[in-house]
């Protein structure tokens, strides 16, 4: 009898206890979910404004996957908080709303940078993971994260990261669909939404910093080349890839080959390390003396030719082939 009373009392306590009880947990969880939805709405509005169009209740409902009544309630609530104004059917961010939205975008892109460079998560998963994590950090924590990564300017897809002051530069470059034929350009931006198009771009093997040319453009498809491989993309997908003209330094990268293709025991000079390789991995390579201008000499390989060992600045350093492929070298003429 006493046992059952104690058990029952325990159960009730477990449910209603403030802060550690089930109800309290549920309330915190609900609040977090609501905040996430609000922040996603802010992001959608900012995104729309950036494209020069204004969001409507319909577009918001579509983006957040909400019913019409739920959207209206959300809009009402955001208006009360002074985050947006409605003008006719259009939704406009207030200054306060824009500040908050930029904070979320900043959190999202810094997270993407961190996940891609330091946690080395596959690029296709980075966006979804950042989407989950972007709501949890304060502005000060973001500053710390930014400083720890050395103030990155762009996320792994090439989108600019807003500064704390809330300045958001425009995305760079011209879409592939509008790029002139046969002029080499550098990939500066890969749009990560919708995810299906982005996965196709990644699956094709395109990456940030790559130099490509458009060989042929038909209504059905675009044919691209990076001098070695050919890529085919549907125009709808290609519109999500932006190119920019080559700078002088990049133009000098012609006649280079990846270090992984350099034959054994042939001397070469390092020209550049691929821009797509950032963060920890890049720092490590630079620290070991694999800097532009250094002379490398593939001296040794194991039974499977992966990894190979290179003589650089007098020391012997082994690199895996997929990493060596990110280092561009110019072979020195044999004499």
């Amino acid at each position, binding site marked *: 009898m006493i046992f059952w009373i104690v058990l029952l009392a325990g159960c009730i306590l477990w449910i209603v206890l403030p802060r550690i009880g089930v109800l309290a947990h549920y309330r915190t969880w609900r609040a977090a979910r609501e905040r996430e939805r609000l922040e996603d709405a802010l992001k959608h509005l900012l995104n729309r404004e950036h494209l020069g169009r204004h969001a409507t209740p319909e577009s918001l409902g579509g983006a957040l996957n909400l019913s019409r009544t739920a959207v209206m309630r959300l809009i009402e609530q955001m208006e009360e908080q002074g985050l947006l104004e409605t003008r006719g059917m259009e939704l406009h961010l207030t200054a306060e709303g824009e500040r908050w939205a930029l904070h979320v975008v900043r959190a999202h892109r810094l997270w993407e940078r961190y996940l891609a460079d330091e946690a080395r998560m596959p690029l296709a998963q980075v966006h979804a993971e950042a989407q989950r994590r972007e709501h949890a950090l304060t502005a000060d924590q973001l500053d710390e994260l930014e400083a720890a990564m050395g103030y990155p300017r762009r996320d792994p897809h090439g989108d600019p990261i807003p500064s704390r002051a809330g300045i958001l530069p425009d995305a760079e470059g011209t879409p592939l669909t509008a790029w002139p034929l046969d002029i080499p350009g550098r990939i500066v931006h890969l749009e990560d939404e919708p995810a299906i198009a982005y996965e196709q771009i990644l699956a094709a093997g395109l990456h940030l910093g790559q130099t490509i040319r458009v060989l042929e453009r038909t209504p059905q498809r675009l044919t691209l080349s990076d001098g070695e491989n050919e890529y085919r993309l549907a125009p709808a997908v290609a519109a999500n890839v932006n190119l920019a003209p080559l700078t002088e330094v990049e133009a000098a990268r012609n006649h280079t080959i990846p270090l992984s293709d350099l034959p054994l025991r042939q001397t070469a000079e390092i020209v550049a390390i691929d821009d797509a390789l950032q963060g920890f991995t890049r720092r490590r390579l630079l620290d070991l003396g694999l800097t532009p201008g250094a002379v490398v000499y593939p001296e040794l390989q194991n*039974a499977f030719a992966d990894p190979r060992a290179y003589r650089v600045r007098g020391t012997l350093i082994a690199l895996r082939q997929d990493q060596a492929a990110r280092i561009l070298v110019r072979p020195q003429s044999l004499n």
Partner: protein
Amino acid sequence: MTTPDEVLARAEALRNRLPSSFRDEIVQSLYAEAEQIARRAVKTPENRQYDLDQRIDRLVTAPVSGLLIMLLLLTVVIWLTVSGANVISDLLFTLLFGFGDWARALFVAWGVPWWITGFVWDGVYRSLAWVVSVMLPPMAIFFPAFTLLEDLGYLPRVAFNLDWLFKKAGAHGKQSLTMMMGFGCNAAGVIATRVIDSPRERLVAILTNNFVPCNGRFPTLIMLATVFVAAGFGGAAASLIAASAVVAVVLIGVAFTFLMSWVLSKTVLRGEASAFTLELPPYRRPNVLRILYTSLIDRTIFVLWRAMLTAAPAGAVIWLLANISFGDGSLAIAIARWLDGFGRLLGLDGAILLAYIIAIPANEIVVPTMMMIYTNAGMMVEAPGSDSAIRSLLVDQQGWTLLTAINLMLFSLLHNPCGTTIITIFKETRSYKWAAMSVVITLGTAFIVTFLTATLARLAGWP
């Protein structure tokens, strides 16, 4: 006048115009400076050492000779350790236990109550002496031998040769070195993961290190292989079969290391391989003093100290369990009986499980604890000296079968890390979560594998 805010705003604007390669340029200029200084200050004489290095390198990284050299060196080191340690172990055993007996007799002569004498000398001291005498000698041989190979510059070449395998499992080539270290001691293997510079791969190496059987488990494996697996064969065939059984168990452990590394890098620790950079230093003449220092002070004494810290309380617990009466026997027997059902499910029995629980500080004292429970002794005791005596105790009195022996070998290989290793994992990762994870992964694997073999064997009509 410019205000600080204006300066910051200007810096912000300028930062956005920097080319993305400005970091590379900073490093480049540092190296240029360093090169200039080096050119002025360093003279390079004609170098014949370099040619020799290259020739050795080609030999040890060639497909066939490289593999042969590696296996040969590993076998020699392990053989030296196992056979050499026996001699010193026996000596230490006699010495330490002689002292224990003498001190115990002194206590009895002074009329100290029996439970104080028992607790101190049969419990705490006995456990400490046991751990020291079986743990110290193999480590004192293995670590110097291993450090010698390290100092010669050979070990990075092993990582270089084997990296392709580790790459497939999403791990780092240097994990091969930490695994080899694990043969000596898993706690030392966990410490050795410091050479892996990327955090993800380092965690993979830490969490899977325990699948490599350490010195403390080798004697158990060898004893079980000789007494049970090779039973019924005579002469040379018996030792060949026993040796193959031990090698097979080691290979299973290595296979689990790769499997678990792969699973981890696909689930909890997912991510692409980060920087694999491995320096292959020039071959050097070994520095004997440094080898002795690092292997004996940094590794042996360090690990032994941690083991002793955990062995003392375990000795106390073991003695208490064996000497507190409960029902018609001791508390240990009562618990073993209670665990028996679960133990049988895994093809083991309750005494074995209890021994693994209370002898958690070091794998070396698992068998003595097991023998204590079986013989109903008041303290840890050695296994009987001859094979036939072991068989009569375990098979005739305790109902062991070949399945029990094989599952015990598997359990010994896969079960949770010893207390010393768990503490080391915590100290290295600074996280209770990862320390707990290392136990969950290994113990989970051990339960699943032994349960499966036991069930399959029973379904096949095998006892």
